[in-house]
């Protein structure tokens, strides 16, 4: 347990320090949201209607962009091999790394959402609802994306292949995230149903993700 806590602390520290690059994700998120009005026009009513979709797509792309850092740096300096050989089960180590990655790169996206909601003419309660859906939805993105990151790092093929593999898998999260966010603002359905399914997706990916990632690391590192 202490080993896992130490690993989480170490990963967060590395991610937040110079050269870590976790906060670049937030910057990317901001840039995507700022680009949207240029593409669809400064019509505030339209932006408000598209707001949940824009925020969810931005967060999805931002979390995808930071994912290749999950194992890459550790693989380059060899600490991934040490983690794989240590007595801590690799599944737990993967879960800890994903958790640390989510805390450093996913949580800032959630925190930034209400601010970005202002740019899209979303009122306070709508922004908070979207932030809530992102809070329970982004872990699913991180833990599913971890499988792609593990595959990519063992194959020495970076980002693009990982994106191609991970994007189809993240469709359910996107569907229920946007549905829950939309339901909170206008939608015909209740907020609870898609929100609970979103929670279920996150929990399921927390179970499946570490096992699949550990399996692919174990297969690939030998």
């Amino acid at each position, binding site marked *: 347990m202490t080993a896992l806590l130490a690993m989480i602390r170490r990963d967060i520290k590395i991610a937040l320090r110079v050269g870590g690059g976790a906060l670049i994700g937030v910057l990317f998120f901001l840039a995507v949201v700022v680009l949207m009005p240029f593409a669809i026009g400064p019509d505030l009513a339209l932006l408000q209607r598209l707001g949940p979709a824009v925020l969810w797509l931005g967060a999805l792309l931002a979390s995808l962009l930071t994912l290749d850092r999950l194992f890459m740096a550790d693989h380059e300096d060899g600490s991934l091999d040490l983690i794989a050989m240590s007595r801590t089960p690799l599944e737990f180590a993967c879960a800890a790394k994903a958790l640390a990655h989510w805390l450093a790169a996913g949580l800032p996206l959630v925190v930034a959402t209400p601010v970005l909601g202002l740019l899209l003419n979303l009122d306070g309660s709508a922004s908070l609802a979207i932030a809530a859906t992102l809070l329970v939805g982004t872990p699913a993105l991180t833990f599913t994306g971890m499988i792609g990151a593990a595959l990519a790092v063992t194959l020495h093929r970076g980002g693009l292949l990982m994106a191609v593999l991970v994007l189809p*898998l993240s469709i*359910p999260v996107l*569907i229920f995230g946007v549905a829950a966010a939309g339901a909170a603002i206008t939608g015909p359905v209740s907020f609870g149903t898609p929100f609970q399914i979103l929670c279920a997706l996150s929990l399921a990916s927390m179970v499946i993700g570490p096992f699949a990632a550990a399996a692919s690391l174990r297969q690939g590192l030998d």
Partner: protein
Amino acid sequence: MTLIDLANPTRFLKLTERLLPWLAGLTALLLAIGLAQSALAPDDYQQGATVKIMFVHVPNAWLSMFVWGIMSLSALGTLVWRHPLADVAAKAAAPIGAAFTFLALVTGSLWGRPMWGTYWEWDARLTSMLILFLMYLGLIALWRAVEDPSRAARAAAIFTLVGAINLPIIKFSVDWWNTLHQPASVLRVGGPALDKSFLIPLLVMAIAFSLLFITLHLAAMRNEILRRRVRALQMLQAAEQQGQLRSGAL
């Protein structure tokens, strides 16, 4: 003869060499019967002759999912039992599955044009088929990204299994998304039960397409085994040449 006996590629090659002509002949026979029956089937009172697209479309759609199932079994064979032919089976199946999915999409869209007035409709079934196609392409890209076949095999096996877990979830979520966005207006849910005059040709075509898949799959597996042998021999030759060069230089 069990599955383990087939682990010897030479034995597998010998067996399939005898089996393939029979399979191919049977496939051709059944396809001919099925196509004739499809052509002779009566027109639908609503859809006219276009209903006959169904006889090609449905077997393709069925096989597109069946092939992912076959690949998942092969993936288990690769990861759990390290069966030497399992990864060959998985690799050979992926392009065939992608082709079936593509054909299901194309025939579906050709059928949709006269029926719905558009080639593409974001209908739940079409959308999940498109996502399945994307996943097939991703899997093929994964196979092609790595030189070493056994390394690629294990990575692809993990992705195949993750996909097998995720595909039902994707299907469910797309269904949910679809009912949220457009109330069922295009497709009558359930529809009228199929008449016998449609059902029998459809079943014959489904069996014929399954046999076609088995034939193509076995042939592709033979090719893959031979390709790997060629690769091994080439590497051996290259190593020998390098050895000669080195001893000559010394």
